[in-house]
């Protein structure tokens, strides 16, 4: 116990160096937490996907659509208890170079959407209003706050996949049931899309980008996928049916290289924590060689020396780690603000916190290892002769 007290006192002997080291470690821990949070944000869609939903899309790729007639056929597939559908609309809202105008715009079927996505919460009256007007749309709470959208506002979007100028009237603002729900989307009626496309490009009507199937029983997932895909195998619009998780994963995996680089970087950071801390501890022990020699003369053993050096190292590492964790939250918050629609869900995971703490502790131990060994091996007489 008393040794620990000496360790504490020792660590404040060079308060500037100790503070600098703590700053260095906390910055490293913060960036570790930051990078890991970015990686989890990237995967947020995968994490948020429900296990009872499957997605049926065109087997060639997402840019091809499926006939709307599939809907009724899909409803008859055994194990499927509900079907909804949607189209990616895209388009350009205001200045396309501003990240915040990059929010997802999706055509959905208001009749079936909310029973398949119970995590999207919309007040009754707003839902009724959304269903009533053909050009109605609803926006997520986060998106509404970001752009100041209110009920009754008109959102004008220049179409690209679906050319033309499109006006949508905000009829509702949805909220997520929990933090994993993307509140940055704009959803509007599929029928509006279909009718308006029919006016200019009659050949493109009656198309859904994807179908969402509700499969209540997990054991049915594989059979449903096979039944559906076999059903359309020989048609021009053949399908690929997969769980919502796998579907989301396919988007994420395309950028896996960037994610891998980021993950590698987060390990490099741990290396940097280690270097900064080891450097400090090495210097501190070098200056105090004589004191350690005196302690050994007084009969203190290796155990005590390790406790003394390790205690100081741990103290600095843990202080830096704790401080860094505190900084992680504003840092990730700032990032979430910078890319509000790219990364709709930015949450610092408990695992990230645990890993950050663990790496600080491990760094504390490892940094003390080398200097402790040095002091343990040192002969007392050599230590006493050193002028500190």
């Amino acid at each position, binding site marked *: 116990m*008393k*040794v620990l007290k*000496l360790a504490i*006192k*020792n660590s*404040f*002997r060079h308060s500037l160096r100790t503070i600098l080291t703590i700053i260095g470690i906390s910055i490293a821990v913060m960036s570790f937490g930051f990078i890991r949070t970015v990686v989890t944000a990237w995967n947020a869609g995968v994490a948020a996907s429900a296990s009872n939903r499957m997605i049926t899309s065109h087997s060639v790729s997402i840019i091809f659509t499926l006939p709307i007639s599939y809907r009724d056929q899909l409803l008859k597939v055994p194990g499927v208890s509900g079907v909804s559908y949607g189209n990616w609309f895209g388009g350009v809202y205001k200045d396309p170079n501003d990240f915040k105008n990059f929010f997802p715009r999706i055509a959905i079927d208001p009749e079936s959407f909310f029973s398949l996505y119970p995590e999207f919460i919309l007040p009754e009256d707003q839902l009724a209003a959304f269903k009533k007007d053909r050009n109605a749309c609803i926006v997520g709470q986060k998106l509404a706050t970001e752009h100041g959208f209110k009920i009754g506002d008109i959102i004008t979007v220049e179409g690209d996949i679906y050319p033309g100028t499109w006006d949508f009237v905000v009829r509702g603002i949805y909220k997520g049931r929990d933090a994993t729900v993307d509140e940055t989307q704009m959803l509007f009626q599929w029928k509006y899309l279909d009718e308006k496309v029919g006016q200019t490009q009659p050949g493109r009507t009656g198309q859904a980008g994807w179908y969402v199937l509700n499969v209540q029983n997990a054991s049915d997932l594989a059979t449903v996928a096979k039944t559906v895909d076999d059903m359309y195998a020989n048609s021009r619009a053949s399908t690929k049916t997969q769980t919502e998780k796998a579907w989301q994963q396919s988007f994420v995996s395309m950028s896996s290289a960037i994610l891998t680089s980021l993950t590698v970087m987060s390990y490099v950071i741990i290396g940097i924590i280690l270097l900064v801390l080891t450097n400090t501890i090495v210097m501190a022990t070098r200056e105090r060689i*004589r*004191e350690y020699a*005196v*302690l*050994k*003369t*007084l*009969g*203190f*053993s*290796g155990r005590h020396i390790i406790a003394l050096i390790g205690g100081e190292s741990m103290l600095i590492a843990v202080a830096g780690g704790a401080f860094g964790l505190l900084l992680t939250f504003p840092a990730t918050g700032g990032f979430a603000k910078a890319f509000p629609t790219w990364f709709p869900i930015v949450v610092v995971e408990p695992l990230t916190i645990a890993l950050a703490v663990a790496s600080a502790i491990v760094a504390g131990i490892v940094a003390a290892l080398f200097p402790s060994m040095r002091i343990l091996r040192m*002969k*007392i*007489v050599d230590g*006493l002769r050193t002028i500190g």
Partner: protein
Amino acid sequence: MALVTLENVSKSYWRDSLEIPVLRNISFEINEGEFLGLMGPSGSGKTTLLNLIAGIDRPSSGRLSVTNTEINKLSESELAKWRSKNIGFVFQFYNLMPVLTAFENVELPLLLSKLDKKQRKEHVELALEVVGLKDRMGHYPKQLSGGQEQRVAIARAIVTDPTLLVADEPTGDLDKVSAEEILNLLERLNSEFKKTIVMVTHDPRAAERAHKSRHLDKGELS
């Protein structure tokens, strides 16, 4: 009765591949209650001899018995334990922990004993009283004069009540008045508290105060 017995003790250092002998076949005894001064020019090996007796260095050959223990046969950790019980060490440059107060410095060796906090306090206060610094308990080393620092170091050396006190040039870094005080203190510890003292010095005035003195020259006793 002999407290310290050296039989044919030799010590040499290796510098690169060159063997440098420091002590050659030294045999002598120190009796309990003695106050011995070890004299000699610098490089004569007197500090090495003192370190061997105090168990912080090991002989290259020969037998070394201190307080009835053959310390050349002890392991590193046994030796550490033995030192904490039997030896009090006084250094030329005091070697107090700058971050600890006088009280805490004196308390350090007691942290290795089984004494509880209250007992430790009693011991520390007693030791500081003996050296006459009870009123400076809460001071840090840098707030004390050189002589006072050395007295704190002596208190640290005697607080465990060791049988043998070893002092390496205890007055080497002190002015005349302070040196005098330290020598008086050592003499008192010898006569009043019956401590056996081995003191390395090249100061003839300090040597005078020892009851007996031995001279080392080029690694040999004369």
